[in-house]
């Protein structure tokens, strides 16, 4: 049998970026993502495979080396590992524990947006209060941006990570660029 030609990954908007003096928008690199669902009794067991305690305060996140956990709901976390190759390992680890683990690495894609106008640009489409006291670094939440759902995650004062379903990323890009027009 002839050698099978390996399929290539073609992530959406690969390498796309925009920047002016006030705002910078870039397509994040591919990553491993797992939707983790677990009840309060299961939490303890998860600490070992993850290497840290899952955040349990609503809207908070936890980062340890390449692995991050975002609280999305009382029994729901989004696990992101910046290394796209680690997903199967992560899935296998979780398989051994009573919880729900679903690979969504390709369902979502991410955009990183930063700069001094970042709150203004996001507030063009997101109805949430994004001031530092209301949404400090580390905060994360599912919310709306224009007509689509996103997960908004604040990395630093002026840097956000936005998770979005891949087919909505084109809309998100276009909206962010439109909102960024009169900045910088």
């Amino acid at each position: 049998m002839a050698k099978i030609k390996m399929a290539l990954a073609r992530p959406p908007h690969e390498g796309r970026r925009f920047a002016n003096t006030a705002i910078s928008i870039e397509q994040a690199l591919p990553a491993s993502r797992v939707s983790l669902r677990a009840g309060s009794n299961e939490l303890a067991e998860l600490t070992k495979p993850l290497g840290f305690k899952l955040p349990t305060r609503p809207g908070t996140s936890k980062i340890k080396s390449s692995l991050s956990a975002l609280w999305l709901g009382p029994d729901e976390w989004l696990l992101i590992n910046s290394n796209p190759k680690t997903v199967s390992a992560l899935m296998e680890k979780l398989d051994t524990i009573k919880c729900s683990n679903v690979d969504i690495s390709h369902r979502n894609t991410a955009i990183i947006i930063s700069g001094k106008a970042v709150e203004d640009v996001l507030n063009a489409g997101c109805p949430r209060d994004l001031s530092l006291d209301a949404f400090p670094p580390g905060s994360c939440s599912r919310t709306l941006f224009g007509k689509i759902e996103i997960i908004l995650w604040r990395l630093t004062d002026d840097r956000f990570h936005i998770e979005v379903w891949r087919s909505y990323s084109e809309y998100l890009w276009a909206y962010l660029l439109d909102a960024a027009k009169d900045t910088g």
Partner: protein
Amino acid sequence: MLLIHCPYCEEERPEVEFAGAGEAHIDRPKDMNAMSDAEFEKFFFIRDNLKGVNYERWRHIHGCGRFFNAVRDTVSDKFLTTYKSGEKKPDPAKLKTGKGAK
């Protein structure tokens, strides 16, 4: 746009993150087959639709994804309280209607 306190996220969020889900505290009978047509009608179609304090369901669909219940005055549209699904019906007499909503 209303501002709704999600009992799971423990904060107020804009209405567009939520989906209204109709009247609250209508439980699906354990034995559906034992229902008369009249009982089925009441269960599936009949609604209180109260003018005043109303018990209703919401889902924080673009947030934590949880269904929860709310007590809201349908004349002022003010929320008296919101509470997790499964918790029992609060007594409206014990809920104060404050300025603004909530």
